């Protein structure tokens, strides 16, 4: 049973790694900054139908979690760090996101058009 469970675990990881390797390289990078528990810019415009990468820099002294329920993204960005978040190709529309640790102030949206 131990072996079976370990095997399942390894298969899951392998599947994800293979899927990563199979993906197209180098989508467009879009910078966004967190400062004083706010995003800057708060509105990001992207081309619909093209995947992109959000480059999130957290200038605050506390970690923040970039979260978008619609995009199925949850990503902790530690204090003073920059993280890259891959975003799938979007249909035209507005996709809100928040900083989950400071939801009242850290809000923004991605507009795909």
């Amino acid at each position: 049973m131990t072996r079976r469970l370990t095997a399942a675990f390894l298969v899951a990881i392998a599947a994800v790694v293979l899927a990563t390797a199979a993906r197209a390289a180098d989508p467009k990078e879009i910078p966004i900054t967190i400062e004083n528990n706010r995003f800057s810019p708060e509105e990001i415009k992207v081309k619909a139908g093209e995947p992109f990468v959000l480059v999130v820099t957290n200038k605050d002294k506390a970690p923040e979690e970039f979260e978008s329920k619609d995009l199925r993204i949850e990503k902790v960005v530690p204090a003073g760090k920059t993280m890259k978040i891959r975003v799938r190709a979007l249909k035209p529309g507005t996709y809100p996101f928040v900083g989950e640790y400071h939801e009242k102030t850290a809000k923004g949206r991605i507009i795909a058009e």
Partner: protein
Amino acid sequence: MGATFVVTLREAFEAALLLGIVYSYLERVGARAQYHWVTLGGVLGLLASVLAGLAVTFLSGPLLDLGPDLVAAAVMFFAVALLTWHGWWMRQHARAVKGDVQRRIDEARATQRLWIVALVAFTGVFREGAETVLFLWGLMSQTTISSWGGVTGGVLGVVVAAVLGWAIFRGGRQLSLPRFFAATSVLLVVVAAGLFSTGIGKLIGLGFIPAGDPLWDSSGLLDDHSVVGGFLSGLTGYRARPTAPEVIGYIVYLVGAGLLLFTPRTAAPATDAARPSAGALS
């Protein structure tokens, strides 16, 4: 204070629920002496969470851009397999103890399988653990006199989650044995279905699975950004705008696990009740 309370309560509740269930499960099958397996799993889960939090904070590089997401997705699917297996195991016990007044199990053989409860405890704590650790850490490092309310709220959220886990443990002891097994099996299947669907959502977010349009939009009815919606999304995988892969995954898991765990076994041998451990632990 309210906002941080909700965040940590939401993150810690699933762990508390699973810990409550596996502790009371051991109690109910007469394996109280084995509590330490759950405790060990929980403590290791906490340690792993702190380590993961430290890794995210102090390491850097391309590995960190994708690594935590891959680990999160793997942990989710691993937890689904684990919970399904635990449900299967409980079902065997439920059949074995039916009509057995002493509800004795073969402890020596049971012990060989007890690392499963340890793993359930471990993944339960580890899944949202790193996030909770980082969140609380962030609150404390940012603390000024005016933000002490936030820290208090965050700590209180974890405490209340623990109390709820304890209440589930106590409640589990009150139920009759068949009811306990039935209730916890249903609960575990719902949690696992939610995890499965959330895992698929994670892969969609990473671009591994095509998303397609949302099948429906129930955000007017129950927004997954709201407090209640957020809890439901953490615990049962609720999404206000679910995509086809998520919905299909949810249904396929529910049906599959339902067939596996809840269909009556017609050909169960009559000797089962008399020999509790015979079929239970093989």
